[in-house]
């Protein structure tokens, strides 16, 4: 079965709309961080947050009235992907669309608010309004209701690689003759509690920029948003191979796993959209790229958009698809010049193949190849 990207949408800290954000990335723009704080007694962090205007096209819908930020991001990105596909083809029959929603941390803002009431005031203070929004599949439920999807809807969870795993799951679902399209949406929302948790995990730095491929790694900055790709059997960009990689027990093992994934995906020259984010991931990717595809052009969107964890891999897929279509890559920002890698510039030559590498922060890694 042939798998293609039929439409895409995203909500990012640089705004919404595929072309709008793409053009800003080409200009070398990077999102501005905002201070993420929690009371007076706790340390503040920087986060790349979604500006309000990125959701300006989100239609009013009863399901979104009290929905969490992650649900709104997912809805906006998903609707954009459908709209983009419908602008090129006929109207899509939602009875024949499956939904795969991917996330890593899920609805952390409402989860924190819900549990905060329990901790501070006791169980009798818990809000029945917040609890349903803490469930991982709440965004998928809202999006399915808005779009009228009433068949297969899955939420899958994992680390930063979950977007690629979701695309592989979509490929499996599209084996069914009853499904024409699979909408893959990945989303994440940023909150102080996440910043603090990842900081305690020694992965997050307090101030920008994110500097990929530096040695030693200097830390990442969390961001939020959503990415959506509508996968079908036709489209200008082909998903020619998906490697759902595997798992690594220790950070040191990530290098071998990324190396194996890249080896399996490297059949032709390609540029690489890496997941390098200023953490141990960078070393794993740099080592594997130097071994397997040392002359390939490398780009990471993390300095511009931040580390959105569950949403990041789908953002990378959208970047790769855009680059293949437009024959250009945005300039790589803040990368370590002495890394030995070939970083993208606005004048980089782009071939007809792209590899998306995704090494998550919590033991999963995967990759895929796109072509035109």
């Amino acid at each position, binding site marked *: 079965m042939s798998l293609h990207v039929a439409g895409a949408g995203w909500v990012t800290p640089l705004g919404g709309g595929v072309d709008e954000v793409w053009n800003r990335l080409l200009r070398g723009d990077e999102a501005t961080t905002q201070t993420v704080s929690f009371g007076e007694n706790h340390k503040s962090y920087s986060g790349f947050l979604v500006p309000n205007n990125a959701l300006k096209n989100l239609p009013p819908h009863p399901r979104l009235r009290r929905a969490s930020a992650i649900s709104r991001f997912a809805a906006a990105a998903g609707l954009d992907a459908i709209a983009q596909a419908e602008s090129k083809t006929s109207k899509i029959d939602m009875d024949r669309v499956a939904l795969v929603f991917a996330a*890593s941390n899920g609805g952390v803002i409402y989860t924190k608010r819900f549990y905060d009431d329990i901790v501070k005031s006791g169980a009798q203070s818990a809000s029945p309004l917040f609890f349903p929004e803490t469930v991982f599949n709440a965004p998928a439920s809202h999006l399915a209701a808005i779009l009228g999807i009433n068949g297969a809807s899955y939420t899958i969870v994992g680390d930063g690689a979950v977007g690629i795993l979701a695309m592989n799951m979509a490929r499996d679902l599209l084996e069914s003759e009853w499904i024409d399209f699979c909408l893959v949406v990945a989303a994440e929302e940023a909150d102080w509690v996440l910043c603090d948790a990842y900081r305690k995990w020694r992965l997050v730095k307090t101030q920008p920029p994110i500097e990929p491929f530096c040695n030693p790694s200097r830390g990442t900055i969390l961001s939020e948003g959503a990415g959506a790709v509508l996968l079908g059997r036709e489209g200008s960009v082909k998903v020619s191979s998906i490697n759902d990689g595997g798992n690594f027990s220790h950070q040191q093992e990530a290098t071998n796993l990324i190396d194996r994934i890249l080896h399996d995906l490297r059949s032709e020259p390609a540029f690489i959209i890496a997941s390098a984010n200023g953490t141990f991931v960078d070393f794993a990717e740099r080592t594997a790229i130097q071994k397997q595809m040392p002359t390939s052009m490398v780009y990471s969107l993390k300095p511009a958009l931040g580390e959105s964890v569950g949403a990041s891999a789908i953002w990378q897929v959208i970047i790769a698809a855009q680059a293949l279509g437009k024959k250009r890559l945005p300039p790589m920002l803040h990368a370590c010049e002495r890394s030995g890698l070939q970083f993208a510039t606005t004048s980089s030559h782009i071939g007809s193949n792209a590899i998306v590498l995704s090494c998550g922060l*919590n033991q999963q890694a995967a990759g895929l190849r796109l072509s035109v």
Partner: protein
Amino acid sequence: MATFNALSETTGQVRVAVVATGVVSPLGFGLEETLNALRKATDCVTPVAGFDVTRCRCKTAAQISDQRLLGRHRNGRKNGRLHRAAHMMITALEQLSGQDSEFKPELSVIGTTSGGMSFGQDYYRALHRQRNLRRSPEWVANYPPQKPVLDAQDAFGISAPCRVIANACASGTNAVGHAFECVRSGKYQRVLTGGYDALSELVFVGFDCLQAATPEKCRPFDRDRSGMVLGEGAAVLALENFESARRRGARILAEIIGYGISTDNHHLTQPDPSGNGPRRAMEQALQSARITANEVDYINAHGTATPFNDAAEGKAITELFKDVPVSSTKSMIGHSLGAAGAIEAVVCLLALRAQFLPPNINFRNLDPNLALKIVANQSRKAKIDIALSNSFGFGGTNASILIRNAPA
């Protein structure tokens, strides 16, 4: 030696065998303990021990003893840092590996609802008190929902990529169903599937504040039902291409023959009262297996005992099936959320192999709006060849699987 058809005679598609399984639940550890407890209609619901419930309406749950669960696994020094859910998964996987040590999955598909939630709670409580944050890196690292699965895989040297499905209370059945489809498509030969969830304060209080949990006994499909009781556990099933399993001489415990999934967009937490969503999932499972409703011998219902769920599910079953015995084993073991569908698949497998109907305990009077043949209060012998297992969840997600007894 018996002969087997590699392709199903009814669907013409690849057959999917269950070659090994493992289960840990309040009923017990392993198939034998679980079977015995099911036959005895054991009520596993006890006062909650792990956290304070004095301000909750519901004060009970079906729980697994920490004394038995913890500190018995092979992960060495890492053992002490693992989440309870990881211990459950390791326990279940240990049983599975003991039954079929040659089973090497290419993929694992596991369901959960709350992942390592209690570690998130520990972290947040420590943060609130501004002390005891020494353990926070391990809480944070072990909180994500894929971690218990990866820890369990790691303990047994399984490196298969892992899809963790979080479709609320339908997660376990969705996982088994999706794994079934992966094998049936011919793309995978062996897939590890299952589900897990450990009891946590946040989820307990969540269901309590929605008034979905009951302070009384859990009475699915009863006229006087008043809500669910939470549970916990894990179950794993080794699914394999039937022909591949037969060739290597694996013991075939059962066959998964059909799967249905639907989404009803009625409400985030309430089922469509028409029962349309559950009905579509069950119909699709029957179509997938290419059998008729008359061929189903037993239904393990989702049966949470909430007024809305049982009404919608009961209506759908009543419309589709005639006189098929129905029970909700959640009456015994509570609702283990993401694990429920996987545990109930194992319950169905045991029912098929031991030829008995698991009971729906605490049952007094059938809801007069339902025409169901409830397996009331006691297990009983029966000839059953095909069982249907239902799971429905928040978000309007509905899943049904069909399991057939292995050929003699």
